[in-house]
């Protein structure tokens, strides 16, 4: 029983990180119409910006975290302006291919700047504490709590603000949204602001919980895609629910599967879903 509760805690933790990544994936997929293969590497970039300020320049951690967000947003917007915007008029699938290239460009830039090895934010060893036999670290609780705050803020933004409503409208039906006079380029800008910002948080949290390496975001990308499909494409709250489900299932799978194979779990869930209910659990878009 304790073991399952322990895995549920780890699952919530991993789920928080996947959920933050999946919001950006589902928004770009819904609003711009393509699966962004560079999203995982945006996460990694955010993690490394925090590493630069906090570990290498010895600034306070919160400053590193806060700076990672605008830096990643800036990168996302620049990539959009330089590359994806040119392909908007043609088929969105070209943007997907371009994002595959952008992913490799970002990742190899990280390798050139910080090297291919792994890093830790802090070499200080933090001992796990125990609560009723369940092991946890303060950092892990912080990540879970911070994610909940961010999700509530995101929900309020999408429900209450004009831009948030426009984003939901466009994710739901881009043509109809354009016809009703929504400034699509402005909505796209906001998509990168939200998606890039949350990707930076996901990356920093992932690096806090594990460690930094250039492929860290790419390895999590499949889980983010699975979460976005599970929640229904274009539905941010669905992607968050999907993220928690995928995270839990990945951790719980270690009860029956060798741990090396836990990356297979999101794929298996996704395949099952595509066969049975391709619109996602919460009836998003499928085509």
């Amino acid at each position, binding site marked *: 029983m304790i073991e399952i509760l322990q895995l549920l805690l780890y699952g919530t933790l991993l789920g928080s990180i996947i959920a933050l990544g999946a919001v950006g994936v589902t928004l770009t*997929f819904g609003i711009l119409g*393509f*699966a962004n*293969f560079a999203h995982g590497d945006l996460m990694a970039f955010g993690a490394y910006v925090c590493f630069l300020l906090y570990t290498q320049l010895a600034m306070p951690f919160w400053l590193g975290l806060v700076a990672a967000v605008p830096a990643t947003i800036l990168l996302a917007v620049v990539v959009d302006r*330089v*590359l994806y915007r*040119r*392909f908007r008029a*043609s088929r969105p*699938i*070209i943007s*997907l*291919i*371009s994002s*595959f*290239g*952008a992913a*490799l*460009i970002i*990742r*190899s*830039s990280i*390798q*050139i700047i910080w*090297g*291919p090895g792994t890093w830790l934010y802090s070499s200080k060893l933090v001992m796990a504490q125990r609560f009723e036999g369940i092991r946890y670290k303060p950092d892990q609780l912080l990540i879970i709590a911070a994610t909940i705050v961010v999700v509530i803020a995101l929900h309020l933004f999408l429900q209450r603000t004009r831009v948030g409503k426009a984003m939901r409208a466009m994710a739901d039906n881009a043509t109809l949204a354009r016809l009703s006079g929504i400034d699509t380029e402005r909505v796209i800008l906001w998509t990168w602001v939200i998606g890039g910002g949350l990707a930076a948080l996901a990356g920093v949290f992932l690096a806090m919980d594990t460690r930094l390496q250039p492929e860290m975001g*790419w390895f999590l*990308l*499949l889980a983010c*895609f699975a979460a976005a*499909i599970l929640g229904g494409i274009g539905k941010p709250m669905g992607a968050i629910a999907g993220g928690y489900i995928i995270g839990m299932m990945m951790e719980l799978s270690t009860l029956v599967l*060798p741990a*090396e*194979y836990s*990356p*297979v779990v*999101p*794929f298996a869930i*996704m*395949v099952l879903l*595509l*066969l049975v209910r*391709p619109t996602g659990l919460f009836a998003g878009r*499928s*085509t």
Partner: protein
Amino acid sequence: MSLVGLASYLVFFLTLAGIYALMAQGLNVQWGYAGMLNVGVAAFFAIGAYTSAILTTGASDGHLGGFGLPWPLGFIAAMAVAGLLGLGIGIVTLKLRSDYLAIASIGIAEIVRLVLKNEEWLTGGVRGIAGIPRPLDGLIAGQNALLLLALIVALILVVHWALERAHRSPWGRVLRGIRDNETAARAMGKDSLVYRMQAFVMGCAIMGLAGAAYAHFVGFISPEAFDPVFATFIVWVMLIAGGSGNNKGAILGAVVIWAVWSGTQFLTGHFPAQYQTQAGALRVLMIGVLLQVILIFRPEGLLPEKPPAPIWRKE
């Protein structure tokens, strides 16, 4: 470099370029003909390589084997197994938009990578499979490398001939129709799923063939030889640079991009030793930038797609 050294490097270069050309041809059936986005090229390549390696090597404690079959059977089995894997993926994703195929295919690439690494009884794990026989060795004394190159060129020509025929045939026309306007093709009574499945499986089988050719060329394979991301990516760059939808373009793109890739090695080869890992990343970055430049300035590639010339039949 001496003249003999240069000649043997040229043979080595062309052999590898030829293997990539086979992969680009396979991808051309999927993307060029039918607009399907396969981001797991390396997985089908690896499956082909391992299938043929397991079937043709002698007994070993390190991995499944001991079948010792002749290499042509290994090549055929490689195509069959890669094609079957493609069929499985196709059943799940081909009725959906191609983004889903792209996502599912990176999942397959990941699973194949994990299986190759962890299932030691089957693949030898990280130690890989050694002693894969080289086809045609000893047929003409001292010309083994050249013979293998000739075999690969022959495979390319056969595949090219078959793909050109398919391109001209009603089958190819329907595929292009589905790619450009699926609704219209369906309205004409064409079952788009069946056509797409056929093209997808055919492409995967050709990638499996390329994998088998690679395994028998290098003689030793291990999971490290199949970096799932980069191997897939460079084939994509080759096809787009050469011209999606054009079979000659796919072959030309493979040779040109492989030359560019090999050329960047000469460039970064002068870097001091401590910067060599960075140099590798810089080469990948340059190929990534090259793809963007092609997509922006010449998306149709070096040899753009042409509608096939009509066939004149003798009465």
